[in-house]
C-alpha cells in the first residue's frame, strides 16, 4: 500500500461555482504521489471553531506538473461552509491519499458515470482519467434545478454530458434513474459508476443489479480518522463490516448489503 501523509498545502484558488459549490485548488511544495479517481483527502478546517474533526473531500483533479490538487466543495454544514470561504494564500492541512479508487475501465469499455451533489467530483475525475474515447464515456449529473448544477462544459472532451433536474430546468426532468440514457440505453454500458446522495446510489444500484451490470458506488459515510484506525465509518458487506475509508470508499454494489 502507498505511504500516507499529512501535508500542508497552500490555497491557490477558490472559485464559487454556484450558490453552494466551490472549486478549491491547493498547491504543495513537494511532488504529489499518484492519486486514483475515488481517492480522497481528509482536510483540517482549522478556522471553524464549531468543528473538531477533519472533513473528507474527494480528489477532483490533479495537476502533477504544478503539484496542485483540486476539490469541489458543496456547502452542507459548518465545516464545508468555512472551507468554502477559505482565502487564497491560506494554509490547508490534508491527510492523503486515502481510500481505494474505482476499478478502472478496460480500454474497450463503455461506461456511465452518475453523479449528484457532493458526488460530482470523483465522477469527473474518473471521466478524465478513464483513458477512453469520449463517445464511450457518458456523464449523467442530477440536481434539483439548473442553479444547482455547475458548469462542466470542459468535460465534453472526456465524455458526453447529460443533465437531469427535478424541475426540468436543465436537461431532462426527473431523477437520474428516469433519464433516457439510464432508462433506454443501460444495457449498452459495461460499467456504471455512481456517487451522490444515498437514495440516488441505491436507485442506480437496484437497476444495475437487476440488469446484472457491473456497478461501483462511492460512499460518503461519516468518518473520524479516514485511515482505518477508528472503525467509525463501517459499511456492512458480504465480507463483514468494512471501513469505508480504507476498504472503500468505492464498493461494488454486489458486496453491499443494501436493502434495495
Amino acid at each position, binding site marked *: 500500500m502507498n505511504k500516507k501523509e499529512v501535508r500542508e498545502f497552500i490555497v491557490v484558488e477558490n472559485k464559487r461555482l454556484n450558490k453552494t459549490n466551490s472549486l478549491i485548488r491547493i498547491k504543495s511544495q513537494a511532488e504529489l504521489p499518484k492519486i486514483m479517481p475515488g481517492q480522497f483527502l481528509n482536510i483540517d478546517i482549522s478556522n471553524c471553531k464549531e468543528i*473538531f*474533526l477533519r472533513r473528507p473531500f474527494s480528489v477532483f483533479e490533479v495537476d502533477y506538473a504544478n503539484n496542485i490538487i483540486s476539490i469541489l466543495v458543496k456547502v452542507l454544514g459548518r465545516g464545508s461552509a468555512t472551507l468554502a470561504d477559505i482565502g487564497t494564500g491560506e494554509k490547508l492541512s490534508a491527510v492523503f491519499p486515502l481510500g481505494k479508487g474505482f476499478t478502472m475501465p478496460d480500454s474497450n469499455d463503455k461506461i456511465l458515470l452518475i453523479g449528484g451533489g457532493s458526488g460530482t467530483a470523483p465522477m469527473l475525475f474518473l471521466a478524465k482519467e478513464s483513458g477512453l474515447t469520449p463517445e464511450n464515456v457518458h456523464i449523467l449529473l442530477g440536481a434539483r434545478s439548473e442553479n444547482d448544477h455547475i458548469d462542466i462544459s470542459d468535460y465534453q472532451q472526456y465524455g458526453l454530458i447529460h443533465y437531469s433536474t427535478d424541475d426540468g430546468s436543465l436537461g431532462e426532468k426527473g431523477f437520474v434513474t428516469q433519464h433516457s440514457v439510464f432508462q433506454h440505453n443501460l444495457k449498452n454500458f459495461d460499467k456504471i459508476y455512481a456517487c451522490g446522495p444515498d437514495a440516488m446510489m441505491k436507485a442506480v444500484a437496484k437497476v444495475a443489479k437487476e440488469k446484472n451490470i457491473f456497478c461501483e458506488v462511492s460512499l460518503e*459515510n461519516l468518518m473520524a*480518522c479516514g485511515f482505518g*484506525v*477508528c472503525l*467509525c*465509518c*463501517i*459499511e456492512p458487506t458480504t465480507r463483514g463490516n468494512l471501513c469505508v475509508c480504507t476498504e472503500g470508499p468505492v464498493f461494488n454494489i454486489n458486496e453491499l448489503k443494501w436493502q434495495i
Partner: protein
Amino acid sequence: MADLKVNIGNLELKNPVMTASGTSGFAEELNDFYDVSVLGAVLLKGITLKNRDGNPYPRMAETASGMLNAVGLQNKGVDYFIENIYPRIRKYQTNLIANINGSTVEDYIIVAEKVNELDDIAAVELNISCPNVKEGGMAFGISCPSAEAVTREVRNVCKKHLMVKLSPNVTDITEIAKAVEGQGADSVSLVNTFLGMAIDANKRKPLLSTVTGGLSGPAIKPIALRMVWQVHKAVKIPVVGMGGIMNATDAIEFMLAGASAVQVGTAIFKDPFIPVRIIEGINDYLNHHNFNAVADLIGNLEI
C-alpha cells in the same frame, strides 16, 4: 536529548508516549505514516474471544472539542488476531500491548491465556471500562466487587504486565483503582470514555445507533486530569494517563498530575503525527526547564 525512558513497573518504555487502544488500529495503519518504533508503546485495538461485528452505523458523532463513539469492540476475535495480525506486526520495535475484553470473566481469562503465548506482546491492558457493549465492558469497571473479581481471575493466569483500564463513569475512581491494585494489577490506565449522548434535533433521533456512546477528546481533559491526580495519590502502582491529550503540554500536565506515561487517543484522528510531536515537545520542555529525565516530571506538581 533528555532521558525519555520511563518504567511502568517491569515494563520499559523508550519514552512515555503510547497510542491508545481503539485509536491506533493494530499499529500498521500508523506505520503507513511513520515508523511506529519511535513510540513508547502501541495499545492494540480491543480484542475479544470471538468475532464481534460491533454496533450498527452510525457509530460516531462529533461534539464540542470531542466526539462520541459507539464502535462496540468490532474485531475478528483473538484467534484471528493471533493467526493473521500478530505475525505481521510483531516485528515493530515498540511495546505492543494487547487490550483485552470480555462479556464474562471466563472470556477475559481465555483471551489472557492465549496472549500469554505471544512473545512480542509486552503487556496486557485489561479493559473493564468499554461503555459500548451490552454485556460486560464498563459493567465490570464501575463497581469494586466486579472490578476486583475480573482483575483477580485475569491476574491468576496472566504472565505479562497487567495494566487495568479504568472507567471514569464512577463516583470515586480511587476506590476502583485501589480495588484492582489489591488484586495484583501492575498498573492502571485511565480514563476510558465518558458515557454521553447526541441528538439530531431536526430528526428528533439520537445520532448514534446505540443512543449513547463514549465521549473522548479535549472536552474531557480536565476531568481525566483530576482523576489521574486523585488515583496517583491513592495507589502505589504506576498510573498511565489519558483523555484529550492533543499536544506535549497536555501530556506534561498528565505527568505532573502523576502519570508515569500517557496514551494519545482521539488526537490521532486529527493528525496521526501528534504522538511523535508530543515526544519531541516533551524533550524540548525538559531541555527548556533543565530537567535531565522525563521521569522527574511524574507527580512533580507544586500544590
